């Protein structure tokens, strides 16, 4: 069992949780994730490791379906049945010169840990964090503290620059010599934003989020096409060279269970007895 040490809401549908998981905290690095399972009947879901403190790790998640909704109801003192990690390869952090770390929506969760390691490696770190509006903006203070420069964008202009991260990035590419760019957010945002760096030939990483089961390279559920080759995001990634990624394929596979996901959420809100095959107890 893994103790929930702190659970708070950060914004509409966005929650933060500190979990006691020493074996994950001990080796966690930027870019890695964990897989958790709330209880015996739960699904294994991957979440990025957003910060580490002592024996604990922080995750930040958005409620979009059954498991994340259930997770959002947990409080300090509750426990998760399983937490495994750190999974995936750490971000390729070294001294690039000037780097840009971009987070969109809940993808901002992954940015502080990358920005911090990039800073420690001697880079000049520029952060760009974006949200639909100012109430949905995450981790502004934390990113301000880590980054040498921080840009904020909102789709509706309620805070910072009115527009998208890609607008700011475009400007930076014109004005400065950039060594490396990280983009983390919804697949469509990563696709569009990484398109901006392509003509400049700037190394760009995106963190892919396909549907996973084991997270150890055993099932192939997380397969994505990168540079024409099949890769398993859980062990070969989750970060890949953005300019090689087949985003269309990723987005298609992410939608594989939309019908089942609706049913699961419905069942969570209105449980209707058992399925018959497990004695009706679930």
């Amino acid at each position: 069992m893994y103790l929930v040490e702190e659970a708070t809401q950060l914004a509409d549908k966005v929650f933060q949780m500190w979990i006691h998981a020493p074996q994950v905290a001990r080796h966690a690095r930027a870019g890695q994730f964990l897989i958790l399972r709330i209880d015996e009947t739960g699904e294994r879901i991957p979440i990025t490791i957003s910060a580490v403190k002592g024996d604990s790790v922080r995750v930040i998640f958005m409620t979009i379906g059954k498991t994340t909704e259930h997770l959002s109801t947990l409080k300090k003192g509750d426990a998760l049945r399983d937490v495994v990690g750190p999974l995936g390869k750490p971000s390729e952090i070294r001294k690039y010169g000037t780097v840009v770390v971009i987070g969109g929506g809940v993808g901002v969760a992954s940015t502080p840990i990358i920005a911090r390691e990039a800073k420690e490696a001697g880079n000049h770190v520029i952060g760009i964090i974006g949200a639909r509006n100012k109430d949905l903006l995450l981790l502004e203070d934390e990113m301000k503290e880590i980054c040498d420069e921080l840009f904020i964008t909102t789709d509706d202009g309620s805070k910072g620059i009115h527009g998208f991260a890609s607008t700011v990035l475009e400007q930076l590419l014109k004005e400065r010599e950039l060594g490396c760019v990280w983009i983390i957010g919804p697949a469509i945002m990563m696709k569009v934003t990484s398109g901006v760096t392509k003509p400049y030939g700037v190394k760009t990483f995106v963190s892919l989020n396909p549907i996973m089961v084991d997270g150890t390279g055993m099932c192939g559920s997380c397969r994505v096409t990168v540079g024409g080759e099949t890769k398993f995001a859980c062990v070969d990634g989750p970060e890949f060279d953005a300019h090689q990624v087949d985003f269309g394929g990723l987005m298609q596979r992410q939608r594989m269970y939309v019908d089942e996901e609706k049913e699961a959420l419905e069942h969570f809100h209105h449980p209707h007895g058992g399925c018959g095959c497990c004695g009706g107890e679930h």
Partner: protein
Amino acid sequence: MTDVSEHVTDFNEVNKGLSEENAVLEALRCMNCVRPSCVKGCPVCIDIPAFVEKVANRDFAGAVGVVKENNMLPAICGRVCPQETQCEGSCILARKEKPVSIGALERFVADWEREHGVKTPEVAAPTGKKVAVVGSGPAGLTAAAELARMGHSVTVFESLHAAGGVLMYGIPNFRLPKEIVQAEIEQVKALGVEIKLNHLVGRSVSTEELLAYDAVFLGTGAGLPYFMGIEGENLCGVYSANEFLTRVNLMHANCFPGFDTPVKRGAKVVVAGGGNVAMDAARVARRLGAEVTLVYRRREEDLPARAVEVTNAQAEGVNFVCCANPVQVLGEKTVSGVECVRMEMCELDASGRPKPSCIEGSNFVLEADVFIEAIGQGPNPLLVSMLPALTRERRGNVIVDEDGQTTIARVYAAGDVATGAATVIWAMGSAKKAAAAIDRMLRAE
């Protein structure tokens, strides 16, 4: 055995096992040979005549004691060993009439013990040596049990949330009930073995931490699913057998939404492959309600799966299309069909089987909404690739000597990671040898 077709909607065990009376009668058939050939056929060398004789004398506790001298997981092996090519295949009676049903008897005594209270074998005095075992499949569990009985302090690291490896995530409940796997694992734990679940070695435990143990046993298995590399393979509805089986066996997707993990049940499922894994995937798909077609590239008589599995699959209504091979998965976003080509058998290959080759222009389409590839697995590369001093052969198998010693001092490997995908009992047999070698090494210090 009961009629299999009546079970096709549930995941309960198909083979119900022997009654006490039938077990005794079967045991009485054994001739108690002086030079028993059956023992030579058993990879862990169980003293078969001795245990069978005890069954005949109704000393079931004594019988299980004999079995456990050499095999800590008898309820599992009694169910899934390919006995027809091992102990039973070597039984002297196999040549005349029917061999003694050694597997069924082994299962019977193990089940009898579970119902009548389990006796934990003795454990030697502590040696103060610490051994790390990576992976809790049959290889890891066997090595752990052996080493614990020898008095070493054993920690097993398992990346999944349940111990057992393929026994839990791969082999379906209707062949190997999961309570039985867990009960046998409890017996391993009773020897003092600590099992740390949710620990992926190489990530949760660094290689330095691993190599700091007095000895290391790698039992990480052959969990890497191969894909055919054909067009349309990433459409929604295409699974590796590993994923399909894991979703159902480990995550209970058959009970969705009571359990949260979904699986595409499919109305028409096509399975590619002809081994035990393919049979399991096909039989699971049948139980989820689909019409199932299995496509195999060689002839029916070449099917590598156990004969009994093929028979069961057929009895449960799986259609077999032999001498055919998928060349493309059809569909827009989700699978709508599988295009196959007919195969003809040419000259024999190195293994003595005819080589299949495509018949030009013989393409045909099988309608399908789910396609499952069960064409084989390779050793899981994650950890072994992080140990650069570990020598592996071309297909990724870790190279070991006859004691299971790898090219790194103090590091041993056995089971599927060393042999490539094989069987439960071979994994156990090789793990036992490695455990003995580890013990010799530790005592020599």
